[in-house]
């Protein structure tokens, strides 16, 4: 049976592989966090892999992306190798940021990943700047800017969308709307139902997409990236999605406040992005259960290797404290 969409099988499989890489990377980090004494805090994006991968795979290798605090998935979605990311979570010298950044500041400039930020909304203007830079340097690079529903109420959101619009910059704003900012539901903080509605205030294309459906996300982002690349300006795409984990993991595990209920979680788990996609790929004959299992095993091995690499890596030398303040 042939694939029911125009995307090559290889690409579909790569999408699945990247989703698995995100999920298994984070599951492992979460599992070993206490035992391996991972420093600091983790914000996992498990459940949101389709929005991330669908969007990232619309990019070219030389395109840019910016993330937020919940951003392990973003560089992984862009295709970077896992070991330096995992080593970074361990705070090791071999980490992608030499142990200086940690979970909230993963960045891999070699892959166009311009970084995450612990400050909500603060990389949105930076994404605008990456788009501006592409224009000024005369390239046709695009910048994909991830942000959460919570970020949609902050000033930099407004300023960034307006700037990108008036300057017609190649920036695609991708809202991962997981319904909550920490424990606060979107409806309590946001005066519109769909963040995408706000695009009108910037004369911009805005659309809502099913964030659990990797192909739906991909399709819309491919379209937006193509328009951005050809000079037609920015777009705002809102992917409705869900995070399975709690907002963050830090210190001893504790019970969360009762801000969401089991039915809601069950509803979304039933729409697991990996399961949904697997069902489709199976139906299309693009990936068998066996091939999926093999893929998963391979990714697991990659994650194992990343953890082993991280564990074996040395801590930064004391003098590293003084390095890289100034160039």
């Amino acid at each position, binding site marked *: 049976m042939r694939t029911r969409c125009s995307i090559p099988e290889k690409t579909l499989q790569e999408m699945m592989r990247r989703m698995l890489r995100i999920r298994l990377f984070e599951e492992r980090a979460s599992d070993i966090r206490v035992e391996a004494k991972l*420093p*600091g*805090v983790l914000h996992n994006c498990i459940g949101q892999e389709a929005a991330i991968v669908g969007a990232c795979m619309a990019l070219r290798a030389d395109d840019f992306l910016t993330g937020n605090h919940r951003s392990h998935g973003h560089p992984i979605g862009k295709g970077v190798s896992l070991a330096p990311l995992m080593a*970074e979570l361990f*705070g*090791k010298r071999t*980490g992608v*940021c030499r*142990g*200086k*950044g*940690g979970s*909230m*500041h993963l960045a891999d400039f070699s892959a166009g990943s311009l970084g995450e*930020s*612990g*400050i*909500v*909304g*603060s990389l949105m203007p930076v994404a605008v700047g990456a788009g501006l830079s592409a224009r000024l340097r005369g390239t046709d690079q695009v910048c994909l800017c991830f942000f959460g529903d*919570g*970020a949609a*109420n*902050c*000033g930099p959101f407004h300023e960034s969308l307006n700037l990108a619009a008036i300057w017609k910059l190649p920036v695609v704003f991708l809202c991962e709307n997981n319904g909550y*900012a*920490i*424990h*606060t539901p979107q409806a*309590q*903080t*946001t005066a519109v139902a769909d963040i995408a509605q706000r695009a009108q205030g910037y004369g911009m294309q805005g659309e809502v997409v099913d964030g659990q459906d990797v192909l739906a996300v991909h399709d819309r982002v491919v379209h937006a990236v193509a328009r951005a690349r050809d000079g037609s300006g920015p777009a705002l795409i809102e992917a409705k999605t869900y995070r399975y984990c709690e907002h963050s993991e830090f210190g001893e595990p504790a019970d969360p*406040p009762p*801000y969401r209920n089991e039915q809601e979680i069950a509803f979304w788990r039933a729409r697991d992005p990996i399961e949904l996609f697997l069902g489709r790929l199976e139906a299309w004959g693009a990936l068998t259960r066996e091939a999926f299992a093999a893929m998963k095993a391979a990714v697991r091995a990659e994650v194992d290797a990343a953890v082993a690499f991280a564990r074996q890596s040395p*801590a*930064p030398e*004391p003098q*590293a*404290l*003084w390095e890289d*303040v100034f160039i």
Partner: protein
Amino acid sequence: MAEMTYAEAAKQAIVEEMRRNRRVFVLGQDVQTGAYAEVLPEFGPERIRNTPICEAGFYGAGIGAALTGMRPVIEAAFSTFCYSAMDQIVNQAAKSRYMFGGQASVPLVIRAFVAYTVAFAAHHSDRPWGLFAQVPGLKIIVPTTPYDVKGLLISAIRDGNPVLCFDDLTLASMRGDVPEGEYTIPIGLADVKRVGSDVTVVAVGGAVHRALHAARMLEGDGVSAEVVDIRSVAPLDRRTILTSVAKTGRLIVVDPAPGTCSVASEVAATVAEQAFTRLKAPVVRLTAPDIPVPFSPNLERLMFPTGEDIVRAARELIH
């Protein structure tokens, strides 16, 4: 008296003031599910007010409410989020009373966590008490014990001016005795946390406890260290510091913030100006270096002055 943590004492101050004065209310992200969850039924969502992520917006809303008769307490969470509302803090909260010739004031409290040594990395680890001390019109407190935080916060809430309260998170779970009910500690007074005669150690925030630890170690050497807790960065209690240095003739200032233009610099400069003839030795500043906070604990723990650093500095000063 009841024994409780720093965090509990701080909350007690606010909750008790909310009971005493209907004008007091809390603004911040996730306050309804976070620290104030159990008093939400008592005060309701109007006074325990969850905000969107829009620091300029909700700090400004606090300022507008303060200008018109309310007494908001803003829960800022991490100190680094305050920068997103910097214009509101500096241009509106701090200046309005003066600019408008005293027509109105801004009785506002902003509580911000100062987190370090917990691998939160550069975006969550600033200690900006010195930075805000360059802003006239703000009061700045940095409590260091459960007792102090309750008394200082009650004063802050009753103060007619904007008060920044930095809660050093290294102290959040520290326990201590706290009186039931109402008491106040005046803003603008330093606190001699330990009396001594050979060297004055002036410290701010968590460093006060490093200093007390050092003082105990020095006792073994026969060195008597006086520990002055700055407690209020603005107004700064220069008199208590100068009195102590006049007695000991030696000054070590300890501040976990970056050194340049820090509170430590201010204390050192004040002493060099006003107690110069009493000084038997150069002043010593022990601060963090001028670098952003790294993630890796192996690096981060090299940043902040320790009790051992203080002991070493004291020994060198004394001969």
